[in-house]
């Protein structure tokens, strides 16, 4: 066995994980070669000292009591993202109410938009060619699709005006099945 081969196998030799033939070859080489024996002794001393030294640094180190509770709390928080961030009960309630208030303001704003539009008598919402929304029994359509339909005038305004200012009416049967591509 060459010195380079022997030194390459030193860690495995120390681990005792070499096949028995290789283990014997390394042992034989170490008996004969003083320079490889020096390398081996150095590694053996290092392996003998460092584990004890590292153990001494940490042997008194312990997790605080009830550490598992911290882990469980983290898992609980991660399972309920709303609770993330260590907010107090009061803060969590405040955030929930802020959300409700924001939705209420948004709905009020939308209602106000229609009231303003109604009062000005003009369209606040313009439908594009592809805009086509159909609710059960009710349709909101671009005016030109409704022109000359029964109940609608030439420009598509509802004749009696179901809701003044809105193009909202029970759709004529002829336009019920309109597809966006037709608009």
């Amino acid at each position, binding site marked *: 066995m060459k010195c380079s081969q022997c030194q390459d196998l030193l*860690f495995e030799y120390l681990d005792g*994980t070499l096949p028995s033939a290789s283990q014997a070859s390394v042992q034989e080489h170490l008996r004969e070669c003083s320079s490889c024996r020096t390398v081996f002794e150095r590694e053996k*001393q290092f392996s003998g000292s*460092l*584990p004890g030294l590292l153990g001494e*640094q940490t*042997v008194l180190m312990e*997790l605080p009591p009830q550490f598992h509770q911290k*882990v*469980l709390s983290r898992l609980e928080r991660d399972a309920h993202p709303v609770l993330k961030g260590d907010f107090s009960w009061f803060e969590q309630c405040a955030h929930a109410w802020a959300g409700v208030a924001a939705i209420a303001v948004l709905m009020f704003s939308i209602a106000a938009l229609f009231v303003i539009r109604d009062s000005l008598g003009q369209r606040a919402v313009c439908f594009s060619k592809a805009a086509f929304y159909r609710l059960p029994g009710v349709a909101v359509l671009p005016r030109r699709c409704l022109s000359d339909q029964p109940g609608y005038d030439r420009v598509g305004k509802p004749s009696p005006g179901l809701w003044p200012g809105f193009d909202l009416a029970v759709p004529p049967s002829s336009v019920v099945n309109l597809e966006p591509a037709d608009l």
Partner: protein
Amino acid sequence: MGENEIVAALKRGDLSVVEDIVGLYGNRLLRSAYLLCGNESDAQDLVQDTLVQAVQSIHRFRGDSSLYSWLHGILLNLSRHYHRERKRLVQGHDFDSQPGESVSDEASRLDLESVSPVLMEAMRKLSEPHREILVLRYFEEMKLDEIARHLNISKGTAKSRLHYAAESLRSLIPKELNLFGDSGTD
């Protein structure tokens, strides 16, 4: 409670076994984390993150290795992330080589018995891969094959890295301490 029972319970969503995991592996993970990051408080955070991540991804544990080895793999990844964050926070300044006294300067004032600060400072000054492989080999007492598997590197790379890591550590310890019984770095 045994490892298999713990894993089965976690896969069922039974969190009562978290206390058992902490009891079985918590302190061992903490000590390893301390050697990897060099700070006890951060080591506790790393252990907490490790256990949280382990519980959340227990379905990925296939039993190819021991539960502890799997937990340690998570710890190692989190420790790498921790070092990346530390480096980012100090804006490119290498935290592992903070300015100040060199190990030798510090050691010259110490009794030969006071090796703890010198050894820990030397461990901190090592590169991350060198520190990791020394912890795996000489603290976790893993064999070469296990180290290679744990770090997902070849056995040859593990050998070479281990050799250079040991040389680096020797070079950072003052010869006069003769810490490894080989009269210093020669």
